[in-house]
C-alpha cells in the first residue's frame, strides 16, 4: 500500500524546483503530453530545461508562475574595446536566432567580447560555464572589468558566491543551476566543444547541467566546433549561428623570447638526500623489473604505483621517488638564483613558474610576492592581476594555472623554477606563449633554473626542444 501525502486541492501553478519544471494542481490528462506524473511531489514534472515551454503553455491556460521574477541585469558595459566586425555580426546573428546557438570564432578572435556584448544586449543575469578553474579566474576578471566586480561571483570548489553574473565550471554547473537556475535566464558555455557527442560517460554527463537549467537563452562559444558530433549540443544550445575561420581573421602573433638555462648546485645535505633516494628507487626498479613490465612507459608506471599499495618494498621505492623530486623542487640555490635574475631586470614584471605548491609558497614567503594556484579564489586572483596591471606588484609565483587561458599583462620576464609535468613540452610552450604576449617589438626573457646533476636536466632538455621548435619563425598560434 502506498502512503502518499496528498496536498489539499491547490490552484494550478508552475514552478522550477531542484532541476525540475513542475506543474501543480492539474490532472495528468490535462497537462502537456511531454510531462510525467511524479508521486514524490504529487505533481506533473519535466526536465528543468523545458520550463520555458511550460511557462508558455501556462500563459495560454491562465496558470500562475510561482516565484517567477525577471532577472534583468542593467549594469553598463565598461569595456572600451571597439568590437570587430566578426564579433558584432556574431552577436547579431545570435540575437536573430532567438538568442540560442553557438558562435564559432578562431583562437585570439575575441570570443569573450561576444559574450560581454550578449549580456549587454539581452540585459539578463548570466551564468558562464567554462571547462577549467583557471578559466573561471580569467572570465571572472574579464566580467569584473567589464561590468564591475560587485556584480560577479564564482561557483566552484570551495568558492560559492552567486551573483548576477556567475562563473562556474562544467563540473560544478549542475549544483549551481539545480539550486539557482531560475536566477539565470542566460547561459554562456565557453569551449562548448566539451559538450560534443562522445562515448565517455564523464564527458557525456556534462550536459546534465543544461538539461535541468530553465534558461531560455543560451550562447555557445568555441574555436573548434565538433561538426558531425553535435547532436547533443544542438539540442541543448541550438545550432551554429555564426562561423568565421582563421584564414578570414588577423593572426595572433606568437611572442618571441630569449631562453636561457641557469644551473645551480644542490647543497651537500640535499645531494646526500637526493643520492640516497635515487639509489633506493633505482635498486627496486632493477630488482623488480617493473620498467619492463610493459612496452608503454605510462602503463608500466601505473602498474608500479598500483603495486605500491600492497607491496611494502614498492611503497618505499615510490616514497624515495617522491623524496628526490622534492629535493630538486625545493633546492635552496634556486631561490637565490631567482632573486639574482629579478635583480638583473629590475624594471620588468615577472612570473615565477613553480613545480609545486610547496615551493611556490616558499618562493612567495622569501620574496614577499603573491602566489596564484588552482585554489586561489577568483576574486583574489582578480585583485592580484589588477595590482600587476597598475604596477603595485612586480612579480607573481604560479603553480599550474598558466596551463590554460590566463594572461598576465605586461609580464616580460619568466623564471621557470620547476615543472609539474616533468618535461611536458607542449604544456610548457603553451604556458609561456600565453604568458608572454608580444607587445610591440619587445622580446621577453625566459630563464630556466635547473638543479645540476639531477633528473631535472633531462626534463629541461625535453621542454627546451618544444620551445625551440615553436620559436623558429612560427606565426599563428593554433594552440
Amino acid at each position, binding site marked *: 500500500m502506498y502512503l502518499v501525502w496528498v496536498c489539499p486541492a491547490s490552484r494550478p501553478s508552475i514552478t522550477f524546483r531542484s532541476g525540475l519544471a513542475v506543474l501543480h494542481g492539474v490532472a495528468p490528462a490535462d497537462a502537456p503530453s511531454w510531462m510525467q506524473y511524479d508521486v514524490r511531489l504529487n505533481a506533473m514534472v519535466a526536465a528543468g530545461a523545458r520550463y520555458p515551454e511550460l511557462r508558455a503553455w501556462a500563459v495560454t491556460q491562465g496558470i500562475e508562475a510561482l516565484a517567477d521574477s525577471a532577472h534583468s541585469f542593467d549594469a553598463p558595459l565598461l569595456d572600451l574595446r571597439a568590437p570587430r566586425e566578426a564579433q558584432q555580426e556574431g552577436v547579431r546573428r545570435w540575437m536573430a536566432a532567438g538568442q540560442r546557438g553557438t558562435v564559432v570564432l578562431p583562437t585570439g578572435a575575441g570570443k569573450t567580447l561576444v559574450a560581454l556584448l550578449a549580456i549587454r544586449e539581452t540585459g539578463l543575469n548570466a551564468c558562464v560555464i567554462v571547462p577549467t578553474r583557471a578559466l573561471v579566474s580569467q572570465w571572472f576578471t574579464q566580467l569584473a572589468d567589464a561590468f564591475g566586480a560587485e556584480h560577479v561571483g564564482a561557483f566552484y570548489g570551495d568558492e560559492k558566491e552567486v551573483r548576477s553574473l556567475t562563473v562556474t565550471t562544467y563540473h560544478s554547473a549542475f549544483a549551481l543551476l539545480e539550486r539557482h537556475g531560475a536566477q539565470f535566464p542566460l547561459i554562456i558555455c565557453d569551449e562548448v566543444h566539451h559538450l560534443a557527442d562522445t562515448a565517455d560517460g564523464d564527458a557525456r554527463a556534462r550536459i546534465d547541467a543544461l538539461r535541468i537549467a530553465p534558461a531560455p537563452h543560451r550562447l555557445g562559444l568555441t574555436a573548434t566546433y565538433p561538426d558531425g558530433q553535435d547532436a547533443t549540443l544542438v539540442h541543448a544550445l541550438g545550432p551554429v549561428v555564426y562561423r568565421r575561420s582563421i584564414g578570414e581573421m588577423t593572426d595572433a602573433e606568437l611572442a618571441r623570447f630569449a631562453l636561457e638555462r641557469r644551473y645551480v648546485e644542490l647543497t651537500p645535505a640535499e645531494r646526500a638526500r637526493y643520492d640516497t633516494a635515487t639509489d633506493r628507487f633505482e635498486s627496486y626498479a632493477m630488482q623488480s623489473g617493473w620498467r619492463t613490465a610493459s612496452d608503454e612507459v605510462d602503463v608500466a608506471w601505473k602498474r608500479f604505483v598500483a603495486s605500491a599499495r600492497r607491496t611494502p618494498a614498492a611503497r618505499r621505492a615510490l616514497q624515495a621517488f617522491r623524496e628526490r623530486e622534492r629535493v630538486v623542487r625545493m633546492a635552496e640555490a634556486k631561490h637565490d638564483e631567482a632573486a639574482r635574475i629579478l*635583480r638583473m631586470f629590475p624594471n620588468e614584471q615577472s612570473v615565477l613558474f613553480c613545480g609545486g605548491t610547496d615551493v611556490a609558497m616558499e618562493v*612567495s614567503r622569501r620574496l614577499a610576492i603573491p602566489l596564484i594556484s588552482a585554489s586561489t579564489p577568483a576574486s583574489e586572483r582578480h585583485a592580484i592581476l589588477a595590482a600587476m596591471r597598475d604596477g603595485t606588484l612586480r612579480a607573481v609565483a604560479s603553480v599550474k594555472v598558466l596551463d590554460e587561458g590566463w594572461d598576465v599583462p605586461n609580464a616580460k620576464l619568466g623564471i621557470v623554477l620547476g615543472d609539474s609535468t616533468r618535461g611536458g613540452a607542449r604544456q610548457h610552450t603553451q604556458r609561456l606563449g600565453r604568458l608572454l604576449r608580444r607587445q610591440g617589438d619587445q622580446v621577453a626573457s625566459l630563464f630556466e633554473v635547473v638543479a645540476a646533476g639531477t633528473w631535472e636536466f633531462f626534463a629541461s632538455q625535453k621542454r627546451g626542444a618544444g620551445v625551440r621548435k615553436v620559436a623558429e619563425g612560427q606565426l599563428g598560434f593554433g594552440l
Partner: protein
Amino acid sequence: MLSRAQVDAFVRVHGGVLRVAYLADENGRIVPFLDRLLRLVRRLDGRSLDTVAEALRRQERRVRDASRLAGISRALLEWCEFASPRGAEQLPVARQHAFAARGSAWPPVPGDSLLPYMESAQSLGIDAAELQRTLYDDRPGARVLLSVPDVTGRALLARYNLELARGVLRDAVRVELLARGGWRDVFRAVKAAGLMHELVRSGKRYRLLLTGPAAAFLVRPTRYGVRFARVLPVLARAPGWRVRAELVRDFRASSWATYLSWLLPRERSPL
C-alpha cells in the same frame, strides 16, 4: 568521505550483486593497532593537519595494505576537530600589505627579505620572521588539531566500515531504507541532502525510497550518490535500519544491501 580509490579497492561485483570487504579483526591485532593510531594522534594535539596526516602516513611501514590505512586515516582525520590557527583570519590582509610593500621596495636584495613584513607584523603584534613563516597559515593543511574523539580502536573500526558503506552509495541511483523508528532525524537529513522521497507502507513498517530530484532526466543519475552517502550516518544512530541500493558502476547496474549492524567486523580481511 573516503576517496573512490579507497573504496573501490575493497568492492567486488559478482552476478549483479556488490559485496564490500569490510575490515575485520579475526586475528585480534587490528583493534590494538587502531588503539595505537588513536594514541599517536592524541599526542599531536595542536599540530597542523599536514603534520598529523604525515604521521599517520608513516605508519604504512607497519601494514601490508596501504589503501586500508589510507582509508582509516581519512576516516579518523574527518572525525577529529581542526581549526584555523589564531590570527589566521587576518593573514589575507597582512599578505596584501606585505606584497605591496615589496612592490615599493623592488627588486629584492640580499638581507632585506623581512623588510616587507615589518609593518604588517607590528600591527599583528608578532615579529616579521614569524609573519613570514606563518604567511599561509589560513590554508586548509595548516589548521591545527583541537580534539580527537574519545573512542576506542573498536569504534574507529566501525567508523571506517561505515565510511566504506558511504563510499559505495556514491554510485547509487536509488536507495531504499527499511526502518523501525527514528523518522524525524532521517527526514531532516533527507531534506538537507536535497533528495526526494516516497513513503511506502510494508506491513507494520515503512519503506522510504530515496531518489535524486531530476534523476529521471539525467545522463548520469549517480550524480546524487554523494547525497545518499550523507544520509547514512544518521541511520547508523538508529537501531534496526536496513539499506538497499541500486547502483550503477562503469555503466553496469548492480544491487547492494546491508544491515547497519553488520558493519562491525564479520569477514576475514587482513590489514
